């Protein structure tokens, strides 16, 4: 057993994911309390270079051809052996398409408790986590002796997990990885849309509040007046009303516009993740407790459809005047 804080480094197509830096920053807080080290676990194939920017005390690098691309089976296979042999104080994983696929399996296989969706940790080893789309927070002590925790962004800046000074990198030999039941086939790159919303400076973003496909025309009309672009949260894209290239959030695009006008969007964590770099967020929602108001600069408690028509009229007037 040791007092170190392990971080499972996530990467995709040769890039370290931002959540990895966030987790390293979080691990530093926890390691101060335990007196242990911050240890990155980097799994990959010919991927050692990626360890260099991590602000960890040490990175254990595990190389194997079966780890060239992420698969749940191979990662669980390798990580379960390391964690049970070394029993660190905590292991941090992203609550992401990578981390969430493996954290639960590790919890069951190793009999270790798991805390989901942690935002931050206090210096005395307590976690703050989020549920109910950000409407409820929970607090508790990290279970002992070894806790697993998944993290979401928001509590730490990625910069605080980065360093110009490379950490100690220790290659670790791994046994054969066999009997794999999950196989990576290939990547399908996103279809290039008519516009790249991550480069747009004015975004009119619509959510469930748009109600019907026909109403999208109203959003388009406003966007035209503001010389902006219409984008959307997941439910609108799932309905097939806008192409995937217009989706903002965790599985979609991260945007950084000058103005993000969020209409009928409640602000689930998956959506918020994609808009935190916006300069000004204005939120329109009928639910006064919607989490979107926590990060917006301006807000209004009104039905987006009632407002849209009025807004179009007044914008037309203002342009004409």
């Amino acid at each position, binding site marked *: 057993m040791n007092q170190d804080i392990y971080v499972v480094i996530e990467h995709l197509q040769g890039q370290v994911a931002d959540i990895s830096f966030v987790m390293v920053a979080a691990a530093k807080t926890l390691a101060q309390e335990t007196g242990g080290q911050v240890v990155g676990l980097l799994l990959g194939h010919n991927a050692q270079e990626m360890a260099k920017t991590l602000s960890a005390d040490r990175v254990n690098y595990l190389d194997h051809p079966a780890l060239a691309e992420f698969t749940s089976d191979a990662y669980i296979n390798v990580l379960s052996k390391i964690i049970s042999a070394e029993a660190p104080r905590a292991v941090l994983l992203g609550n992401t398409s990578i981390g*969430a696929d493996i954290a639960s399996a590790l919890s069951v296989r190793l009999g270790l408790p798991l805390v989901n969706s942690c935002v931050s940790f206090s210096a005395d080893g307590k976690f703050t986590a989020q549920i109910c789309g950000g409407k409820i927070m929970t607090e508790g002590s990290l279970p002992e002796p070894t806790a697993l925790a998944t993290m979401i962004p928001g509590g730490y800046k990625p910069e605080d997990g980065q360093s110009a000074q490379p950490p100690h990198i220790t290659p670790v030999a791994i046994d054969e990885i066999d009997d794999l039941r999950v196989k990576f086939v290939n990547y399908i790159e996103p279809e290039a849309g008519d516009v790249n919303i991550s480069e747009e400076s004015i975004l009119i973003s619509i959510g469930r509040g748009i109600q019907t496909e026909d109403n999208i025309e109203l959003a388009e009309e406003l966007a035209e*007046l503001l010389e902006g672009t219409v984008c959307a949260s997941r439910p609108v894209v799932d309905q097939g009303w806008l192409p995937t290239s217009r989706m903002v959030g965790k*599985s979609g695009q991260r945007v950084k516009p*000058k103005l993000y006008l969020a209409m009928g969007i409640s602000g*689930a964590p998956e959506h918020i993740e994609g808009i935190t770099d916006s300069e000004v967020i204005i939120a329109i929602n009928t639910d006064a407790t919607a989490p979107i108001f926590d990060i917006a600069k301006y807000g209004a408690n009104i039905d987006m459809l009632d407002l849209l028509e009025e807004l179009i009229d007044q914008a037309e007037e203002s342009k004409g005047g």
Partner: protein
Amino acid sequence: MKIVVPIKLVPDLVEELTINDSGTALDMTWLRLIINEFDDHAIEQAILLKEKSGGDVIVLAPDGEGVDDMLFTATAKGADQVIKLIGNFEDGVNSHALARAFSDVIKDLQPDIVLTGVQAHDDQDGSVGPLLAEFLGMPYIGYISGVDLENGKALTKKEYPGGLIGEMEIILPAVLGIQAAEQPPRYVAISKVRQASKTSAIDEREVTDLNQSGGPIIDRMFQPEAGEKATMIDGDEEEIAAKLIEIFEELGVL
């Protein structure tokens, strides 16, 4: 092909949430429950697979307010069998306990594939899907938005950030965490649900041991303080629109 779909109810976030007297859990008394939206996608994906490749769809859910309606809705959509887990679910159970309960029942069903929602917004100790997979000794892939079945394998589309898709192959039997079905969950008229409740039955399975180990102990539950909330613009639509136009002009976007 036997397709099993474990689903659950979650608090409707449109309603106000309150915390109970213990200060560590949601007050269940007035809570309105709805189907976990990702589970709704899992049902849709299961029905799509059945329509494409044939097979039986079996939907399971733990007991709770509104569960019968939810299960009859699944029947009306095309599920062949629906099963309600009977046990001490009133005060809510964590994902570990629910996954254990599901696995006890699903083991006997011997599914070829298990589809469930990739997550639920009230998961405090991991999601049910990957926990269940490990209890069943099956492999798991989550964040799935497309499934094809062929020769004892599933070819899946796994979502990554930025619209990137990872195509992955998984050997069956397996558990898949569904992010989005290949088409939006179908709508069924209330009359069809009513009809299902008259012409079909819900099977019941007793669950005795709801073992919650594997989750954290919550010391405090709270609503986030409105620290840096938005500056709210009051008024009717005309007044709000006027103020927004002012802000647009200040920002130089109009």
